[in-house]
């Protein structure tokens, strides 16, 4: 039987190797491996053999079977196109109708996730605010010229006896006040992401936009921690090679105050049309002013803190490759735009 098997194997190898098309291969497969095929017959006969012999012959038959299976499959792949079973793998797939999340939603989610990883609590505070939360408690005296930069929309309604005018908050910094009043006793690590409004509309401004405000208050917080946090954020969003820096600036609610720059994501810091000498302005930051702590019932002798408030759209526009020329485009309602992302 051993000899018979070996002969069959050799014969099969010869026939399969010379087979010219898919049909012939199929006939051979049936002839050897089919229900009445030669190999199947051998397997049936095994049970009549002596146990010792059965084991050895069994191995041989199985080995032969595997050889034939492999060879048929490899021979199929060597057949010329015309000799094969016809199948068109290039036919387009049937797509399911998949929608699109807005770029701003994606950016908000990404930003929240980065800060939540380092222990920040995400909140969302009101868009319509009293003057006291958006300015007063943030150390802005009434009628101060610095208020001009905030281009604020006011609501036509009676002012609050204690909190002043009703307005659309021009920055998420109002959330600093609300969060300190909510938590009462530090530690505080807040990330407030909300809609803001300013009276302006041009290539880089839309009257409605989104800011994210970070606030950290605890014992022994200093400038190194602010730098560490913005470094962490920049690297998480733009990659390891991004550099950050802070420059002097003035905000009434922080002391010292900073302007934050990231190295340009387009030219990688070499300097280009988009940036200023390799740097892109990201937004403001600073160490919380003691007067803000006082307004929020937190003891400035015991605690220090830092805060920053940046535009979600700004971070989005810095994404390399996005190439949206006009910020207002983000608020287009046209599907031809929205469905690109």
């Amino acid at each position, binding site marked *: 039987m051993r000899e018979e098997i070996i002969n069959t194997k050799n014969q099969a190898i010869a026939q399969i190797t010379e087979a010219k098309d898919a049909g012939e291969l199929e006939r051979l497969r049936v002839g050897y491996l089919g229900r009445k095929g030669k190999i199947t017959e051998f397997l049936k006969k095994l049970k009549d053999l002596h146990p010792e012999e059965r084991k050895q012959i069994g191995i041989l038959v199985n080995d032969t079977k595997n050889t034939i299976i492999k060879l048929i499959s490899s021979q199929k792949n060597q057949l010329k196109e015309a000799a094969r079973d016809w199948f068109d793998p290039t036919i387009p797939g049937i797509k399911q*109708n*998949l*929608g699109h*999340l*807005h770029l701003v*939603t994606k950016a908000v*989610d990404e930003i929240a996730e980065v800060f939540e990883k*380092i222990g920040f*609590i*995400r*909140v*969302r505070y*009101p*868009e*319509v605010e009293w003057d006291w939360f958006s300015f007063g408690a943030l150390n802005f005296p009434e*009628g101060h*010229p610095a208020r001009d930069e905030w281009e604020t*929309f*006011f*609501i*036509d309604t009676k002012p609050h006896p204690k909190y002043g005018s009703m307005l659309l908050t021009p920055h998420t910094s109002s959330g600093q006040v609300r969060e300190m009043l909510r*938590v009462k006793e530090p*530690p505080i*690590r807040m990330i407030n992401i909300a*809609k803001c*409004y300013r009276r302006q*509309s041009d290539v880089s401004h839309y*009257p*409605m936009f989104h800011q994210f405000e970070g606030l950290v208050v*605890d*014992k022994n*917080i*200093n*400038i*190194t*921690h602010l*730098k*560490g*946090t913005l*470094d*962490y954020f920049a690297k998480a969003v733009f990659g390891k090679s991004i550099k950050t*820096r802070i*420059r*002097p*600036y003035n905000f009434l609610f922080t*002391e*010292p*105050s900073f*302007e934050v720059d990231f190295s340009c994501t387009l030219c990688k810091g070499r300097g280009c049309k988009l940036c*200023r*000498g390799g740097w892109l302005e990201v937004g403001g930051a600073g160490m919380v002013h*003691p007067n803000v702590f006082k307004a929020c019932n937190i003891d400035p002798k015991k605690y*220090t803190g830092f805060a920053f408030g940046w535009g979600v759209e700004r971070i989005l526009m810095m994404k390399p490759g996005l190439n949206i020329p006009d910020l207002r485009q983000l*608020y287009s*309602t*046209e*599907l*031809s735009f*929205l*469905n690109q992302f």
Partner: protein
Amino acid sequence: MDIIISDNWLRDYLQTKAAPQPIAKYVSLCGPSVEKVNQVDNDYLYHVEITTNRIDSVSVYGFAREVAAILPRFGMAAKLKPLSPNRNFKQVDNLPFTILSDDKLVNRTIGVVLTNIKNWQTPGWMSKRLTSCGIRSLNAVVDITNFVMLEVGHPSHAFDYDKIKNNKFIIRESKKGEKVTSFDGKTHELHGGDIVFDDGKGEIIDLPGIIGTKNSVVDKNTKRVFFFIDNNDPARIRKTSMGLAIRTVAASINEKGVDPELGETAIYRGIELFRQICGAEVASKVFDNYPKPYKKKKIILDKSFIDENLGVIIAKEEIETYLTPLGFECSWQKDKKLFVGIPSFRANDMNIPEDVVEEIARIYGYHNIPSELMKGSLPNPLHKTVFPIESLIKQTLKALGGTEVYTLSLVPKEYVGDNALKLLNPLGKDTEYLRTSLKPSLIHAANQNKSVNDIFHQFEMANVYLSGKDDLPEERMTLGGIFYGYSYRQSKGIIENLLSELNVNAEFVPEDSQGFRPSRRINIKSAKTILGEFGILENDDFIYYGLDTKRLIDAYNPHPSFKSIPKYPPQIEDLTLVLPERTKVGNVVQTIKVTDQNINKVELTDIFKNAYTFRINYQNPKKTLTNDEVEKIREKILKNVKLKFGALQKL
């Protein structure tokens, strides 16, 4: 405020070999931000942003002081040259002038009469500098006042001495309705409370600190000039300037609180220039009215306070080398306490120890401070925040083919009801109100899209603003969406998918409402709470849905209770019923479902004319149902639907 500083001019007061580009770069890192440097002829112009607290550096000299303090930190020698104009000149006459001042309105006034103005022609070098810095060159007299302002940082003014009839200023508050005509010929009606100069006869002859008036301005016939510096209450200057919309450079500077000490430098620098350029002679004493001269203030702080706030330790001696060039006087008590004497020009912005820390830190260089994440304990977490669920809702709609859109919360009047909040200062009529519903904005968006898209589903999740009585409005997070090209059943199925993803047990209750076609709107309810609405809009081909996100989140069930997996297989059969016209299929499904507790699923699988096929699962948790048992249930179903709806089985 943005200013332009000429590099040539800067070097009149700054001794350094540093080139303009490095100056711009390093000053931006440690001081005012230089937005750009450009070359004009043989000069370079720095475009500098001066923050409102640092009006002391709005001048050539003030900027030079910053540069001189910063460059040495980058290994470049730099020295500030003194600005000390000549005070020795001959007084050719002793003309009179009287100023009746009011301490509440002005801090200091200084004036001098100049006579024999021989030259009105501005020299080229001066007009070039002024033009470079964005100031129009007019004539030598006016140009000198502007030149002094740009160089010294204190606005100044030149009156025609002979037009001031009684040689007298009475400084007073304006009355409401008083009129002045500025030198450019425009007449302004005052709101009252503005600082004005009265000639003693009731006529206003100047709007000090803001703009000169026509009746006192110098012109070609002017023989004698009254050169004048006034240092006014910044809050009033701002109020007048904003109220009358006169935003001159002088007003922008004066409203930020200029150092009255600078007035003296300005007057003598002006006299120097008038003599040099116009050939003028001094014809009066210098009238100086300065009732409350600056008393030097001090800020005291611990060395440890500086170290802790910076996160790095800087040596005492180093600190002194940073602060001294900025004009601060440092002295130490027992090496532990730092006394910082504040110069007059920094009196407004230096008040607390943190201000001193900022000065040290910026000159040390923020780039030299290390970065590290804070240690310390984490804040208490917030349980059950809305954000992950809002995200789940958006993700689900996206997976079901929806495209998210952001529309503006500010809408025109016709989009809102009576109680909507209105803006006092809108950008335009179409963005005058805060919206109370997403529907109009989404319809607007859909109308834009329907001409170029056959089928779409657009949705938005955003606040609507419902005005509260004497309080902030309720900001209600709302989900809204529009289907176009979808059938009623397809659209409703998507909403059903969303509700089932959120495990919300909802029912749909038909109820007509304005804006929807009759009988084509349903309320989406869960446990008696209305979550929202769904239906076909009246005038459009759109299907709209709006859901209150907060209520939806309240109804959301993150963990449905486990039901044991049935051990016995269900019997599944299709039952086709012929329904009379105007039968509500939703009610038929509900009727079949409640027929027997062994019916655990009923689905509408097909509609052919008036024949509706329902797929019914019969299942008992404890045994396999026999054909007899199923037949009994089926008979019960058929009996019920016949009785209730007149429905018959189609065989």
